[in-house]
């Protein structure tokens, strides 16, 4: 139906998060498809730096005028930084989901969860199929 961006250098989860892996540091946000489906985002809430995250576990939630959704991390580890600028300006996630709209950085204790993720071509097909 639509045309959503999905940069080639990122990995993608079925729950519509993107992950950027640099060594053991993983940055996570939500995809262009996700922000488009959610519509105007009005609130975000993340775990705090220092909190542990399980593989497949929630690291926060996002709320739009349409719905509230959990945010999931495909990797286990510790939250080392959150994008606190989004608390006052959650609409940045709509405007720039892969840039200024990044959400959390996690120091991964294991990168095993990366294995099951999609590349951008597979994610494009996944979005088109829905």
């Amino acid at each position, binding site marked *: *139906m*639509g045309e959503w961006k999905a940069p080639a250098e990122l990995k993608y989860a079925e729950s519509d998060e993107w992950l950027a892996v640099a060594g053991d540091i993983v940055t996570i946000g939500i995809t262009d498809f996700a922000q488009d*489906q959610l*519509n*105007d985002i*009005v*609130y975000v809430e993340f775990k705090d730096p220092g909190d542990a995250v399980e593989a497949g576990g929630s690291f926060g939630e996002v709320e739009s*005028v*349409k*719905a509230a*959704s959990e945010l999931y991390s495909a990797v286990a580890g510790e939250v080392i930084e959150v994008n606190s600028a989004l608390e006052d300006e959650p*609409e940045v996630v709509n405007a720039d989901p892969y840039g200024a709209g990044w959400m959390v950085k996690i120091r991964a204790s294991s990168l095993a969860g990366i294995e099951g993720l999609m590349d951008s071509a597979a994610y494009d097909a996944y979005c088109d199929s*829905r």
Partner: protein
Amino acid sequence: MGASEARPLLEPLIYDLGAPGRIGVNLPEPDVPETQMPAELLRDDLALPEVGEVQVLRHFVKLSQLNYSIDQGLYPLGSCTMKYNPKVNEDAARLAGFAQLHPLTDESGAQGALYLMRELQQWLGEISGFEAVSLAPAAGAQGEFAGILMIRQYHIDRGEGQRDIILVPNSAHGTNPATVTMAGMSVRELPANDQGNVDMEALHAACEGELRDRIAGMMITVPSTLGLFESTILDVISTVHEAGGLMYMDGANMNALMAVVKPGELGFDVMHYNLHKTFSTPHGGGGPGSGAVGVNEKLRAYLPGPIVDVIEEEDEDGAPLYGFVMPEKSIGRMKAFHGNFGMHLRAYAYIRVYGDSGIRDVTRYAVLNANYLRAKLMRTYTVPYPRYCGHEFVLEGHVDNVDEVHALDISKRLMDYGFHPPTNYFPLIVPEALLIEPTETEVKEDLDAFVEAMEAIAEEARRDPDTLLNAPHTAPVRRLDEVRAVKELVLCCAPALPAGAG
């Protein structure tokens, strides 16, 4: 009405009406000595409106005219929000013997009300196939909370307090996972399959894997929030039972089952009714509701109290004496007094007026009307699960090749055609969901008019999408800025003083 016509001015707040010294009542001269109000109780900052009787009356009549109600036309939010409430219910609720009954009245002085509550308990048990019913919970979410607390206590009493996981399908009402969390247990979400049913493979994996001994039960809505009967429900129930869990049915959609399917006979252990949905008691403006819970023999002793029972048997001196009792291992009270009695009374009137066959007709017409609309609208819109539905169905609120039009735009445009919009964006698992529930009371002409409006809107979307994107054009207010409404809360009244202040 054309979009260009002058729009009515919105009514000012009552605080902005009136003038100092105007009053709406004439009080007689006092016949007792006047006393000075203690100075510490006087407040200068309390801006009370000063208005005459007719101003008050006109103010609230105008506000009511800005609203849209089911007394004006089709309201496809359905029993989920407000189905038609027969006026005879209100007559019953206004009978002085009920309306003026004080909740602390001695049991001997309230036998009529107690008899009514007991009969309602029995009827609800009969309708759902359960052994016992408590009318105590104040609304659906409290009924859920009572149900999950009963399940928790049941496991604890059997020495299986480690059972702390409640399975919840991903189509569930948001209250289900919230209830589980409130009860100190944890949620495990189950996906739906492409038929809209619970994914049996995922259910088996949850019930037969390493978490088996932690499964406390499952909460499920039947028919589901997609309006679909879970065609594998018997398998679902036996799978959870075999793992040692109990089955909770969210009764929000009982309008599709009443007098046709009994959840107790399907194997459910506990359910709540929304008397304020299914049994037509009013709850606009936030309440009150009534979330009666029904249970089978396993949970009977845990029911929240008080419930009504015979406390002195009938003898040669006369009728039995009814009174309140607490079940043996009751989880306790859900609220003060005896539940929302006004709702019990209206639900009683509803069941009494319809009777067994009439209640079955309610279910049949509700299901027939929903399927009629579904079949008609499938010609124009995508219906993601194209099989027979219960009392409601979901369609996708978009028009092929018109990407800029969303469910919200279709809903807003429906208002210009004189219909209340259906539920938007729920269930979450359907993109651009429009959840449509016409209910049993709509006649074919009105259903056809709704279909025509939906077809006209799809045509407009193709020809002139801006008409939809800027809708509504004829409602008292235009498109609201929902983002600003969420982000910039403005309270029109000053917040209440904190307790103990002043």
